[in-house]
């Protein structure tokens, strides 16, 4: 018996959909083919006729069609005044549709930071009053309360990222298709894909190691100290499983913006590192400040010429 999957878009840019179409380990096509899934609806891929999504929704809400996996892409728009009418489907607010759908689903997955935490649309001043499914930025309780659980007893699974990493999304779907036990971290992100930081695997690693920190973008060195890179503090697999099979932002010279974090995007200038004196305010996870400062000055002294002179190309 096939497991059903519904991919529902709310206040979205479509980035997670575009990303999942880039997945290659496994591909989205392969997941549908090989794991006995019935894709009830996907806004960009569905084969069913125009105007038939409401039949799918009706069938689910009437318990005629079982719903195993509900994927939500996009922020939950609550404006104006909690009604959600800034984001409607055939006159109904998507907020209300989602509220009803989650009660029917075995698993609910927030695909992307917007659905997980509110995301970019919820950045100050949050003009359409966006929230996440079960979080409002860092605070628990979003559309759903902290204690809410799906039919299989799990909270909303937060596949964070802006967009979420393509292969994280497809691998997670495989895990759900097989009912594999999931461990979730304190933000309900699946630990399997959020137990490493972006910094691990960055090809600018020697520059970081020896404290060769760039002051301007477009260079070859580390971007942590001055240019806003949040790689050392951001859980994600970007430098372990490369994007599009090729690279990552930090390898290319774009700072990590911390997009798997509930506070993404931070309020402050994104290309600049907040500091206390000369040292970044946010240190790599778990590091003590005074030890870090000692290590960095020794590191700089130990730097070989080939790194100091930028001979190593990331």
């Amino acid at each position, binding site marked *: 018996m096939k497991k059903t999957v519904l991919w529902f*878009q709310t*206040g*979205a*840019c*479509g*980035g997670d*959909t*575009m990303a999942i179409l*880039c997945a290659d380990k496994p*591909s989205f*096509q392969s997941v549908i083919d090989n794991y006995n899934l019935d894709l009830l609806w996907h*806004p*960009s*891929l*569905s*084969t069913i*006729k*125009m*105007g038939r*999504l409401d039949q799918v929704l009706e069938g689910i809400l009437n318990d005629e069609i079982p719903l195993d996996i509900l994927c939500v892409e996009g*922020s939950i728009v609550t404006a*104006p005044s909690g*009604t959600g009418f*800034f*984001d*409607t*489907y*055939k*006159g109904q607010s998507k907020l209300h549709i989602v509220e009803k759908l989650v009660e029917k689903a075995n698993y609910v997955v927030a695909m992307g930071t917007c659905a997980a935490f509110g995301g*970019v*649309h919820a*950045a100050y*001043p*949050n*003009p*359409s009053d966006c929230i996440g499914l079960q979080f409002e930025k860092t605070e628990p309780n979003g559309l759903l309360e902290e204690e809410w659980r799906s039919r299989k007893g799990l909270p909303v699974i937060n596949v964070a990222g*802006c*967009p979420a990493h393509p292969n994280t999304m497809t691998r997670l779907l495989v895990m759900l298709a097989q009912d594999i036990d999931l461990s979730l971290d304190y933000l309900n992100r699946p630990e399997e894909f959020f137990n490493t930081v972006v910094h691990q695997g960055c090809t600018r690693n020697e520059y970081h190691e020896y404290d060769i920190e760039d002051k301007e*973008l*477009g260079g*070859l060195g580390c971007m942590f100290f001055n240019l806003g890179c949040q790689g050392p503090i951001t859980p994600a697999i970007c430098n372990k499983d490369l*994007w*599009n*099979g*090729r*690279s*990552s*932002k*930090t*390898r*290319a*010279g*774009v700072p990590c*913006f911390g997009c798997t974090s509930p506070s993404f*995007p931070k309020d*402050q*200038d*994104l*290309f*600049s590192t907040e500091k206390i004196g000369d040292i970044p305010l946010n240190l790599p996870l778990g590091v003590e400040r005074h030890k870090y400062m000692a290590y960095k000055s020794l590191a700089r002294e130990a730097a070989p010429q080939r790194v100091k002179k930028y001979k190593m190309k990331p």
Partner: protein
Amino acid sequence: MGKENKFMTSQTVRIDLNRVEGDLEFELDIENNVITDARCIGTLYRGFEQILLNRAPRDAMVITPRVCGICGTAHLYSAVLALEHAWQLPVPPNATRIRNLCLMAEGVQNDLRQTFLFFTVDFCDDLYQKHELYDEVVSAFAPFEGAFHRETLEFSKKMLEIVAIFGGQWPHSSYMLPGGVVTEPTSQRVIDCLDIVNTVSQWYEQRIIGDTLDNFLALDSAEAFFTWVEKEKPAHSGLGILTRFARSISLHQRGVGTPHMLSFGAYCDPETWVAGAQSDQHWVKSGFYNGETGIISALNQNEITEHVRYSWFQDYEGGKHPWQGETVPDYQPQTDRYTWAKAPRYADKVVQTGPLAELLIDGDALMNDLLKQEGGNAWLRQCARIRRVAYTFAHIRRSLEELLHNLNEPHIIAPSPSVYTQDGEGYGLVTAARGALGHWVRIRDGVIDKYQIITPTAWNASPKDSQGVRGHWEQSLIGLAVDDPENPVEIGHVIRSHDPCLVCTVHFVGTGKKITYRP
């Protein structure tokens, strides 16, 4: 359900479309199975301009790609050009080459996906079961099962690796910054990109057109094209099957819309590009095509205005240029206002933008002749989209060649930090996959004071303006016969041929603080 008497009288049907980008609904008045009026409805409002307000200007490099998942590169490019214009910054040729390269790669992906993941799927509808070409079409285009659907997923994905090579990832990266790009060209990167374009263009030649790029691009008249498409290989190519089927259901006679066309030009010339240049500095020319006179005139962005009379924003008279426009969301669902999209106009005319406009205004002889012979139509737009891919491969190769011969040239001229908080006003005009995309920015006291975006779909999906003149898509539907309003496949063909993207279109509002809501 067969035709009943009630379909013989008038009714209003509300339909939603999937397999477009984002949320699109239409309200149609149907009388005796013919569409008599159409209202195109953008149903989502996100408010990006308010989010950008008071942020550091370069934050636009991170925020604006999030307007749209499928054309984030176009937004990034437009945003960086607007800042470079505002700050009068020079940009080195290699940076322009790399920017163009990434935009081209995204465009090829977009055009292929629109055609074979969104548009041709409709040919497999039950409605056509008795059609003589049905089996061929299903085997070619059925979702997940059809050959072209599967191959397109694979090869469009491959194309995007070019963006990842120079930008780190696709979608959503921020590798274009004022003064250049962050990643230097190396021979390895260029070779990797050449490998990708070789692979994808070979597939395109074999499967999508059934001929070489040169032969296809050499076709310069309707007659030459129709002779060519009957040859064995082209006839069974993606374009061939699409053409035979589309024309057999008269899509070459449907979906005219407005005759006027707009193109912002494509690919800044790396050697000559300077922000705010008075004359056109693009590889693919910009301009405005007047569909009534047949005259192409130079683009003048001062002629761009937006109306809000039929949109859910507080009203003002007539149309306003993006720098003057003030918009305050004002949701009024029970009035004759019907959408979150504004109504952009060029010299007060309704225009269409997209691959047909782009190729025509650049002087493509084939498009010119087909337009003359048959007028604008859904099939022609689709054909233009596929043809544009062929041109883009040539532009990609040229960009890579130029990079290969200039590897040691700079990829960024980093401005001094004091520039980043300078006051200024600028715009960036880019051709995205769907057509003309513009960003207008104003910086005051070191932060963003105003930001306006007009997307290609905003042009195409425009509602009525202050004069009550309908937008391009709305016009393209009026007079269309609908066999079964419960399953309006005909509408799907016409609208999807426009390659709509509603995620982009209804995101922007002005600086107003007050929101009025009347349920």
